[in-house]
């Protein structure tokens, strides 16, 4: 079942990779890994949209959900072969790797080995995933798979609010698609999807830093991600937080690439990926909006109108799907209901003691975050302080847009907590760590895209060894 699920998810992953390769034909190992990482997420996102449209148009024709992704793969593969025939340069060129880089790669590979074992242990212990997996995501997948002709029952307002029937469907649709293709309901399918997004997150971090900086810096950034306990804990859980963290990271790295390489195609792709984030979780919808604002606020006016146009273009298609889902199909969110103790939305907004409770919880979480003995954010701050920003290599505009997007996203989360109708302390305890996790990979990217790289620090050593 595991191999079958892997083979199935390889279809959209390969389609996504080839689609990105058609758009970004650049060569080299870093680019190839970048395209592979983006392609996994893009492919799974597009696959869920295709399945969604199939269910809307032809729910009684389950074969369509297999024929369409297969057909799309054949089409994209044909286009890629035609495109590659015209090229003479090799697809892969391997760089010379210095001793420092080998050491850092080795350390990262060792940590990756441990994280693989950790993932295995978690999935052995919890094959049906974390609490929210069976409470929300796989519950929804079961509704779709078990009764495809009546699949919209998963969005019923009669469902208990804790099952979150209003949540977008990227994750459950892919699971239901997998089950439908296999013809059997197996926990291996959501497990494999989790593994794909976990791998895509790591690969994206590695390749994007490698593309914009150095191999050693990419190894360090990946090492921080892979050795952070919450990264694996959220990653194995068959929940939508790891996919959302991926889509946020992918959007911000593509925005960064746009400012670094000044090519609009990166921004179109960034918009599309941000739209897939909105199709993953409600917090992704918030990110699609705040990333638009970030593009508006950070650079000059000229950059804004040019960049925003491309970004909005990319955002368009997935957002049509998301808005149709939100307006025509999904029930209203529990966040806008009457609060506990019958408090109105306005009363909650005007209750300033709530603000203080939220600030305290955020500070406490940031200072103890991610399962490290010392908060990972404190460690990253100390690292940045000592290593310093490398002004010659960082894209200031890109870094600024990402920083603004992250800050706005945090403000958005803050606002959600202010208006939440649920018990505030309970809501903070149950979700704050997960919300911070959404932007954690992006902050790691921002740090390592900006600070001095290890090759620079150990320059003398490598030169001495080589001479």
């Amino acid at each position, binding site marked *: 079942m595991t191999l079958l699920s892997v083979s199935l998810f390889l279809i959209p992953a390969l389609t996504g990779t080839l689609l990105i390769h058609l758009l970004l034909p650049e060569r080299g190992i870093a680019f190839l890994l970048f395209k592979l990482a983006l392609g996994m997420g893009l492919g799974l996102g597009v696959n869920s949209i295709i399945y969604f449209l199939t269910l809307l148009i032809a729910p009684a024709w389950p074969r369509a959900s297999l024929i369409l992704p297969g057909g799309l793969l054949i089409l994209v593969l044909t286009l890629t072969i035609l495109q590659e025939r015209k090229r003479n340069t090799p697809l892969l060129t391997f760089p010379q790797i210095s001793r420092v880089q080998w050491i850092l790669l080795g350390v990262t590979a060792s940590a990756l080995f441990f994280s693989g074992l950790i993932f295995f242990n978690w999935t052995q212990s919890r094959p049906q995933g974390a609490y929210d997996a069976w409470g929300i995501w796989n519950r929804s997948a079961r509704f779709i798979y078990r009764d495809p002709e009546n699949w919209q029952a998963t969005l019923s307002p009669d469902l208990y609010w804790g099952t979150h029937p209003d949540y977008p469907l990227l994750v459950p649709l892919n699971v239901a698609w997998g089950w439908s293709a296999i013809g059997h309901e197996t926990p291996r399918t959501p497990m494999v999807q989790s593994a794909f997004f976990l791998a895509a997150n790591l690969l994206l971090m590695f390749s994007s830093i490698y593309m914009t900086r150095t191999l050693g810096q990419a190894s360090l950034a990946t090492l921080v991600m892979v050795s952070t306990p919450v990264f694996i804990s959220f990653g194995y859980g068959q929940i939508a937080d790891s996919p959302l963290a991926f889509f946020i990271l992918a959007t911000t790295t593509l925005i960064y690439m746009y400012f670094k390489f000044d090519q609009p195609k990166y921004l179109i792709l960034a918009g599309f990926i941000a739209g897939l984030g909105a199709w993953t979780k409600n917090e992704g919808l918030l990110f699609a909006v705040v990333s638009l604002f970030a593009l508006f606020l950070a650079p000059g006016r000229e950059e804004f109108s040019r960049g925003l146009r491309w970004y909005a273009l990319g955002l368009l298609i997935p957002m049509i799907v998301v808005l149709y889902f939100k307006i025509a199909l999904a029930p209203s969110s529990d966040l806008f209901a009457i609060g506990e103790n019958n408090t109105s939305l306005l009363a909650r907004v005007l209750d300033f003691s709530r603000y203080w409770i939220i600030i305290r919880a955020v500070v406490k979480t940031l200072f103890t975050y991610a399962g490290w003995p010392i908060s990972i954010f404190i460690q990253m701050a100390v690292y940045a302080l000592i290593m310093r920003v490398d002004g010659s290599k960082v894209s200031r505009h890109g870094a600024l847009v990402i920083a603004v997007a992250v800050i706005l996203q945090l403000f958005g989360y803050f606002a959600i907590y202010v208006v939440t109708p649920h018990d505030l302390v309970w809501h903070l305890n149950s979700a704050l760590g997960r919300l911070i996790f959404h932007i954690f990979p992006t902050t790691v990217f921002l740090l390592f895209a900006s600070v001095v790289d290890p090759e620079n*620090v150990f320059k003398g050593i490598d030169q001495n060894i080589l001479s």
Partner: protein
Amino acid sequence: MQANLRKALIILFASACLWQSYQYWYTTRGMENGSEALASWERRFEEAREIIPIKRGVIGYLGEWDIPGTKYDVADQTAEYLLTQYTLAPLILERGANAEWNIAILNSSTFQAWEQEHQGKYQVYRLKNHVYVLQKLGNK
């Protein structure tokens, strides 16, 4: 001086990351098998699924939190409700016993108290492990 500090920092940082990975792996060895509890929860409802004739739509759900005067833990009750919803999907579980078909998960004494108050209103199917299927009478 600063160059040495940076070198030391990178070495320290990379070592700490590797050590953290190892430590985390160490704590996950021999974790208890939580899935067994979930699988056995699903098995509890196999009989109920056969008795309830409808395969889609709304059925009622009664937990201890629905019976006045019963002591319960909110987190436990929520988890049981979500687990039952997960198990019986695509049936929609609505709190209370107002539907034609209802499912109850109650300990024996709580169920007896509930039954005394509702005598003659439901046909009761007593299943194993404190699971009851309740068919509302006069509502077909």
